[in-house]
């Protein structure tokens, strides 16, 4: 096939995919249906792989489809379905507009050692120490962090500006949504990658995908045995070199009539660029291909896939650095254990599966999920942690669980979530307004959805909080609403392993339906 339609199809599909991902992360008014994220995220390679390992169902087998697609068509995934890849194409276009030079790529030698080393290190690191390298390098998670830390706040600012103007005209269809920032240091990783990926894609096309991205490298290996590829018609070619100049992957050596399939992302630009129609996309000559294959490379590809599949199993046996509860203190709210989101099962369980794509942080309607700094240990940096100073976990909400693509937060129905104890409230009497000021407060008990925090008689007419911790679910509404500063009088200490809370018991009231006015 040498039709210009191929490129057009690529542009249309990738644009749609990009818009879908953009909407997924900046859904500021929570209007997307609950299964939207499942559909959009189905084909994402790393999340799907992790999810498949956890669930083992075909519903989570998107990565297998990606592997199949790659075996048939080469790295089409990188051009059609990877949001980070599509975003880079967008940047490359912008780069070309800024300076024409940026869009004249030309053939370059591959960074063989660098890219295979990164792939190998990622695999080995993930097997031995846990998920941190994947967290850093999974392209979907990188994209997710760009959206969460840069795109969504920008959309919020625009929204608030528009809402402000509409409000002046008495129209409230848009509402002001406060932009809550994250700890400054948590921007460092996304910012670093944004600069790296941004500069590379502005000036060098898909160099990031072909030098650093481990998913790109892995699929590149696999596409060396793919059935469909781009190929030269040597008779028609005039060796003008326009294809090589226009190749984002810098993988066309037009003098030798060679296209490096391990780097080609099937963008099909070359087909359209070639005036002589000398480049086409089609079934590879099988005889010739057998000639070119290298047994050792095949073994490596097969080995890599086996390793990827087996890796989470191997990592089970490893010692984790999840924090263990220390001795509890009284006056200062000192958490001995962070609180990880419901569905995580426990800190260790959760942090080994989460690649910090930050979708849950973006999607949380109450802003309680914040990127962890060192709460889960350094390897758990950027993974979501409950911050009850910023928000609380809404009793009727399972949004984070619903959107999690890697199954780090496992599916859980609302009724089960309402009985999952992710932490326990601890009351510090010496900080409490009722004791220090001798005035009424009760903000904590007011907010408690299970009445685990309730008021008991204190001095005179006053009442003071008390916690029944077996019905507390650790939602943190009490901590969030406690007005004392700088230390709260009530806070939630995380459960290292989530427990089951008891259902709050309730009895009929003694007050009955009145038959007459009591006044």
């Amino acid at each position: 096939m040498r039709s210009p339609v191929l490129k057009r199809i690529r542009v249309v599909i990738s644009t749609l995919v990009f818009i879908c991902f953009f909407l997924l992360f900046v859904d500021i008014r929570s209007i997307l249906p609950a299964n939207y994220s499942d559909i959009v995220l189905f084909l994402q390679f790393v999340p799907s792989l992790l999810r498949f390992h956890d669930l083992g169902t075909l519903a989570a087998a998107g990565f297998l489809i990606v592997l199949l697609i790659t075996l048939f068509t080469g790295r089409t995934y990188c051009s059609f379905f990877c949001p980070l890849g599509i975003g880079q194409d967008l940047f490359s276009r912008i780069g070309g507009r800024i300076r024409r030079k940026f869009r004249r790529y030309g053939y370059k030698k591959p960074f063989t050692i660098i890219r295979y080393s990164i792939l190998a290190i990622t695999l080995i690191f993930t097997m031995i120490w846990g998920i941190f390298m994947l967290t850093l390098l999974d392209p979907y998670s990188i994209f997710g962090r760009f959206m969460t830390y840069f795109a969504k706040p920008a959309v919020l600012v625009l929204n608030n500006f528009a809402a402000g103007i509409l409000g002046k005209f008495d129209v409230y269809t848009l509402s002001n949504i406060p932009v809550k920032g994250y700890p400054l240091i948590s921007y460092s990783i996304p910012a670093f990658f944004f600069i790296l990926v941004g500069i590379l894609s502005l000036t060098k096309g898909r160099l990031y995908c072909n030098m650093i991205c481990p998913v790109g490298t892995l699929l590149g290996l696999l596409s060396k045995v793919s059935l469909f590829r781009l190929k030269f018609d040597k008779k028609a070619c005039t060796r003008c070199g326009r294809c090589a100049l226009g190749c984002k992957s810098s993988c066309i050596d037009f003098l030798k009539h060679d296209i490096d399939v391990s780097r080609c992302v099937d963008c099909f630009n070359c087909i359209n660029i070639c005036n002589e129609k000398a480049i086409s996309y089609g079934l590879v000559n099988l005889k010739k291909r057998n000639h070119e294959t290298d047994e050792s490379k095949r073994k490596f590809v097969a080995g890599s896939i086996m390793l990827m599949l087996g890796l989470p199993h191997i990592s089970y046996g490893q010692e984790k650095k999840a924090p263990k509860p220390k001795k509890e203190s009284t006056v200062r709210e000192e958490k001995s254990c962070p609180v990880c989101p419901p569905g995580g099962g426990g800190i260790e369980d959760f942090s080994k599966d989460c690649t910090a794509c930050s979708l849950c942080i973006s999607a949380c309607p109450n802003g309680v999920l914040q990127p962890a700094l060192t709460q889960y240990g350094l390897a758990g940096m950027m993974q979501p942690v409950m911050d009850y100073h910023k928000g609380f976990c809404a009793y009727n909400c399972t949004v984070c669980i619903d959107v999690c693509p890697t199954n780090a937060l496992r599916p859980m129905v609302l009724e089960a979530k309402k009985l999952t104890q992710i932490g326990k409230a601890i009351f510090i009497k010496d900080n409490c307004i009722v004791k220090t000021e001798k005035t009424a407060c009760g903000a904590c008990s007011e907010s408690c959805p299970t009445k685990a925090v309730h008021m008991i008689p204190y001095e005179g007419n006053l009442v003071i909080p008390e916690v029944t911790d077996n019905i507390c679910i650790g939602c943190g509404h009490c901590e969030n609403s406690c007005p004392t500063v700088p230390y709260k009088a009530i806070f939630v200490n995380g459960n290292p392993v989530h427990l089951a809370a008891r259902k709050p018991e309730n009895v009929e009231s003694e007050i009955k339906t009145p038959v007459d006015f009591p006044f």
Partner: protein
Amino acid sequence: MKRRDFFKKSVGAGLATGAALSMGGYDKLWASSPLVSAARYDMVAVMGGNPDAMFDLGIQELGGISTFVKKGQKVLIKPNIGWDVIPEMAANTNPFLVKRIIEHCFKAGAKEVYVFDHTLDNWVNSYKNSGIERAAKSAGAKVVPANSESYYHQIEIPGGVKLQSAKVHQLLLETDVFINVPVLKNHESTKMTCCLKNTMGIVWDRKYWHSNNLNQCIADYALFEKKPALNVIDCYNVMVKHGPQGVSKEDVVQMKSQILTTDWVAGDAAAAKMLGLPVEKVEYISIAHKMGLGNINLDSMNIKRIKM
């Protein structure tokens, strides 16, 4: 003009317009003063009907809603929408009641009716699951967000003991008539929440109230000059324990009642009796009475009691 320049200029112009708009003053808003009631009774209490039917009857006894709402006026209806729970839990004002009041307002010629609450749970879900958003919109009211500090304006409360200033929702200042529509509930700390405590959903910084003598702050706020023209207390389903949020339906008792009054302190005093509470047990009511903000001596008042 180059395309790039055009974009630069249009963005600049847009920003300037926005900035100019946001600097508009609120001086003109003080044109109307609080209403002096011309109602026939100080209080009307109705029992035995549905929330909307009880309101129809009660407001008729007070001379119709036109006693309070004049043609062309903007009305603020402030229900309790604090919690993300279904109407049967009675943590929020009954949506049928809210809807009926809005309909009466428009019938009397109101130009616009607004509804908001500064919720404790997520505001989008609270507005939705309380049933109030849909009910209010179906009656033609504007349901307005109150989730961001940008909607609030600083006001002074001269004479406040603990609360001398607060940030209140701009629509309280922009509207001509304020109708307070609380739901009566038990409250574990202040014993009861009703008319006066419903104002905590008008202000931005509730934590200040909680940490500076909550009961005094509740009473202090009632000094603010923009007072409700009418209070409609929803006692249809009443949360008698585990308030103000409730745990399950066992906390709710059906009382099928409603209290309409122009005196919100009196309204709270009557409501306390519905809960079986001695009025002096609810500290902020006694404080408000002593500050001269209303009357707790129900015996001295002209009360109309109706059973349907």
